[in-house]
């Protein structure tokens, strides 16, 4: 055994083990990107650099072996800066969006590309889950949303945006028409209670997500029915029939939400009473006639402890989807307040490539069908065939591994910015010839783990480095196709790939 010190803690580690292994055994966190257990360390990304006393430079913990009396520092300013810079350099050479622009453009941040893929695959049960994860009133919104998502759809650059709103409506209508519409699995009751003032889109949305988190909700409204502006505003009821409002709100009510109609808070019941009876109060009273309520985002806190405010009452909320998003976000904030955790979780890192070059757009178009956009002028919504045909128009320009990408996670963890280092932008490329997997070289960090895996799996041709330096690439030797190179190791290669460079097609 070797005795060494990591962060002033004396520890023992077997001879031949690395600093990373020794630290991990002690529960000391060293971030890694290109490291994979059971594979030879590629010591390439330099995210795991540490300082070893006596050495002139930082060294990668994954490849440096422990030595007697070694003194290691795993975290200080210098190290942190180097780690962030390593990620930022990789990001400066990274091509591809983490999220589809539609999802970024959606105020509720609904995972639109995923929903569309589920529609295309005919998995409507999954599609409604995807929708309701972020939008609790999709049938309603599917009729009235002004669809900011469609304005940023990349397909708009080629012919016309995907009819996202109609697709969402299709999924929601289909669900409502079914014998057992989707209901989220709610967490066990936590014993916490929230009063929500206002049963409009914001209040209903907050109720849905609070209940989902196991927090009881009582919704107070001065009208006799829930729905707020959806129900009481002046609008064309051919576009949004009352029947849809009834049905969709019933789904929320069915989660077990108390609705107290015809109650005017401040008159029939005082704020003080609500505050004493409930653990938290959310004000969602809609567009005020007088002063707006002061509340900060994204916490939605007012100056009064345990009182939150969201939606039209705190500022101009022209888009219904924005009001719904407010409700959801306020619910998250209340949940953190009542159950612990941070109120404003660290935002995810989102890489964005900006406008596509024509050649890049062509790559995406090639993967889709050449059909005409379904315009939302029909009041009947889409048929199943139409919906699937429309879904097939989606370019899938989001990253398939956005939820499973170590580079993205580390970018968030290390507070890396995309544009610290800027330079030559390579063109987006996508290699689709393999039946199961996609390869997007612009997302590759050249760690070579996939090469090792292909070799270990006994691939005959396998993968290989080509060239060197900045132009180095991972390829199948002799310009052969990925189908030839990965006859059996494809899935394992995808799994080991720390970025979205290698991903499953589905």
């Amino acid at each position: 055994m070797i005795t060494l010190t990591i962060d002033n803690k004396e520890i023992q580690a077997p001879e031949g083990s690395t600093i990373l292994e020794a630290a991990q055994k002690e529960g000391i966190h060293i971030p890694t990107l290109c490291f994979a257990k059971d594979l030879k360390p590629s010591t390439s990304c330099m995210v795991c650099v540490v300082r070893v006393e006596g050495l002139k430079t930082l060294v990668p913990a994954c490849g440096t072996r422990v030595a007697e009396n070694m003194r290691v520092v795993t975290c200080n300013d210098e190290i942190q800066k180097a780690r962030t810079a390593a990620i930022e350099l990789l990001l400066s050479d990274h091509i591809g969006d983490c999220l589809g622009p539609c999802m970024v453009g959606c105020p509720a941040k609904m995972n639109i590309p995923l929903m569309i893929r589920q529609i295309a695959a005919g998995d409507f049960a999954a599609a409604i889950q995807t929708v309701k994860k972020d939008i609790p009133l999709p049938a309603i919104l599917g009729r009235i949303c002004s669809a900011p998502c469609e304005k940023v759809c990349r397909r708009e650059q080629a012919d016309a945006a995907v009819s996202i709103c109609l697709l969402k409506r299709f999924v929601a209508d289909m669900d409502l028409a079914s014998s057992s519409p989707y209901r989220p699995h709610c967490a066990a009751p936590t014993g916490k209670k929230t009063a929500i003032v206002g049963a409009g889109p914001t209040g209903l949305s907050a109720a849905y997500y609070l209940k989902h988190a196991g927090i009881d909700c009582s919704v107070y409204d001065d009208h006799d029915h829930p729905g707020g502006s959806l129900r009481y505003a002046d609008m064309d009821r051919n576009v949004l029939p009352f029947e849809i409002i009834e049905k969709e709100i019933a789904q929320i009510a069915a989660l077990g939400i108390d609705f107290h109609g015809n109650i005017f808070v401040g008159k029939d019941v005082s704020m003080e009473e609500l505050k004493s009876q409930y653990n938290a109060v959310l004000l969602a009273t809609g567009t005020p006639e007088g002063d707006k309520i002061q509340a900060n985002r994204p916490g939605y806190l007012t100056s009064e402890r345990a009182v939150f405010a969201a939606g039209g009452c705190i500022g101009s909320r022209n888009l219904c989807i924005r009001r719904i998003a407010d409700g959801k976000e306020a619910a998250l904030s209340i949940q953190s307040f009542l159950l612990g955790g941070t109120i404003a979780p660290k935002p995810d890192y989102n890489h964005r490539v900006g406008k596509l070059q024509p050649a890049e757009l062509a790559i995406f178009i090639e993967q889709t069908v050449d059909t005409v956009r379904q315009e939302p002028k029909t009041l009947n919504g889409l048929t199943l065939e139409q919906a699937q045909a429309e879904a097939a128009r989606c370019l899938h320009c989001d990253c398939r591994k956005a939820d499973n990408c170590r580079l993205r996670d580390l970018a968030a963890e290390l507070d890396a910015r995309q544009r610290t280092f800027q330079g030559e932008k390579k063109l987006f490329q996508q290699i689709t010839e393999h039946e199961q997997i996609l390869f997007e070289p612009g997302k590759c960090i050249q760690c070579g783990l996939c090469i090792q895996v292909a070799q270990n799996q006994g691939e005959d041709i396998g993968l290989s480095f080509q060239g060197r330096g900045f132009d180095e690439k991972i390829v199948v030797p002799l310009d052969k196709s990925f189908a030839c190179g990965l006859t059996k190791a494809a899935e394992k290669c995808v799994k080991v790939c720390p970025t979205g460079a290698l991903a499953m097609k589905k």
Partner: protein
Amino acid sequence: MTELDLSCVDAIIERIGTKPSDALPLLQAVQEQFGYLPPEAIERLAQTTECKLSGLWSVATFYDQFRLKPAGKHIVKVCIGTACHVKGASQIYEAFQRYLGIEPDEDTDAEKLFTVEKVACLGCCMLAPAVQIDDVIYGHLTGETVGPVLQDFLEQQKHTAAAPARARRGKGITGQARICLDSSCRAVGSDKVYDALKLAVVNLDVPVKVKSTSCPGMSFLAPLVEVVMSDGQIFRYGQAKPADAISIIRRHFQPVGISGRIRSHIGNLIDTLLDDRIGHGPIRYSLSIRDHSVDDYLNQQKQIATEHAAQIDPLDIAEYEANGGFEALRKCLTERTGDSVLAEIENAGLRGRGGGGYPTHLKWHAVQKASSRQKYIICNGDEGDPGAFMDRMLMESYPYRVLEGMVIAAWTVGANEGVLYIRSEYPLAIQRMTAAIETCTRRGYLGNAIFGTDYSLDLRVYAGAGAFVCGEETALIKSIEGKRPSPRLRPPYPTQSGLHQLPTLVNNVETYTLVPWLLHNGAEAFSGLGTSKSKGTKVFALAGKIRRGGLIEVPMGMTIRQIVDQIGGGIEHDNALKAVQIGGPSGGCVPASMVDTPIDYESLHTAGAIMGSGGMVVLDETDCMVDIARYFLEFTQAQSCGRCTFCRVGTKRMLEILERLCQGKGQSGDIEKLQELGHLIQNTSICGLGKTAPNPVLSTIEHFRDEYDAHIQGNCPAGKCRELIRYSITDDCIGCTICAQHCPADAIAMKPYEKHIIDQPSCIRCGTCKQVCPANAVEVK
């Protein structure tokens, strides 16, 4: 395309072997056979040897030497080494492209006659700018001479070389005519002068031995003929031509036979005298030993590694022995112990000459004490720095000395097998070292039972394939093992786990070369030279804007000023010295204000440079320091193996900033970003290439910050950066139309007897007009 005959691939495999470590020689042989690497041939190698396709492909695409597409019939290699760069190599490259009508993203002309490539360094820095076409080197090119050079080359191809005259044998030799046949001397035609001398000796029937020798190092005079009389008196003739041979011989020697005298007599009548009266062609010098320039050049030097320069025939082993060669080795094996040799090396204070300056005895000691039955020795001859050719010259001129040092080292540490790794751009070094190994094996200095002892050592030459990073010891070892040569993290050091995971001693050519002298003359003689921490001598390749350049060996501690002024004779064209670049792409620029810095490891480091392997390029007022930094970083960036993020992406981002600056598109904050990235790359890379890559940038920012600032303002004070300058014609124009005739871009309209005007949008800023103008009426702003 016709189907390939793969039977020759099978023959290659049969000849070379099937082990994974044979990958590189196999690929080299295939390329030799086909001129490129055909996919079918690579596949055949993968099928019939133990080399995996994946490995072969990653190796084949790593090295510059390999081509995956068929090349033209002849390869034009345009040297972009430092000395060539500062003398306009990129304009030469473009001139070839233009002359041959090669498209920007192509490298071969339509008729597939010439392929034009850039090459890191041909090691002919004194001929800068230089190109190599197949095996022929042309020097001192201008954009104008590209056409004539290609025509000359094609013309030469038609004639087969004249059979060399039979040398005079037997007794009665009264003198010698010596000439160096090393690569850079050949490049200026020393081989043709050699043939002419031999012919002259036969025709005149004089008792003279014509001899090829080790390099005198005086590249500025090459080809240099030295006539040595029987009394030891030496006469030197610089920049000799084949036509001079007969005059040179006749001037010093009397023919012995009657027929010879008659021929000589008749010849005297029609011969022109060898003097300054010849008004055309290159200027020629006849020199005696008392000539000041040679005196100054040589007297300041101390020759240890280059002992007997210009005296001994590189491959004549008897001559090497007669001059004390292998005596140090004999003493070691028959009279000394390894420990005593180690102690002597330690007392001498020898430090590695490859760049780092690590104490040699520590390295040797580590291998010596490693408990392994099998150990290796490696000679690192992968000198790849642009602007450096010391190791090439040592291997070409003193192959036996290199080997003697290596055998002593191998014996000291207990290694029985070894490799000389020589970069592929040095074919003559490969040839001579291979021949020297054979001769030494026959003479019992290598192989079994050396000097009758039970010590045995087998050495072989291993040719690199064009990758600068292979000069890094762990990459070099991987290269020998047939793997993709990306450096690995140390420790473990090769002294513990090197070639095939066994203890391995890796030293640079020059380090080994110093050992025989050191042991022969004793540690005190060696440590008597130099400074307190840097002992002995250092060989430098002195080049750039200097009057007398070449290979020099100076005692440590000499100042840069002494080298530039006394040995180099000062700056060309009486320009002002701006800086001296030392250490190549890993080094830095020592500004003129610091030229009193002595040459030793620590002082150079303090000045922001490094000893490196010994490239020393002198820069004058016309050199742009931002451009120099960009040039070096472009080199290292292209040579990065690509493993570490900071080196792979970071050097690219730095280069992009420098390119922006040179194009006048710099932004405020660029310089700070360069420094930030530079420090990060130094602090995180795992090998020497990455750790030192930012040095040229950081050192020029430190010493020439004002030039960087000027570039951000859109000015290039030295008038070098093409996008920031414009050529114009002054009122001094005499209307001779020469510039218009020569302009390759037709940017000057021909107007006899009138002032000419350059059309700025058409001007490609190649500088041809300025070179050809007889009235010096072209100015650059």
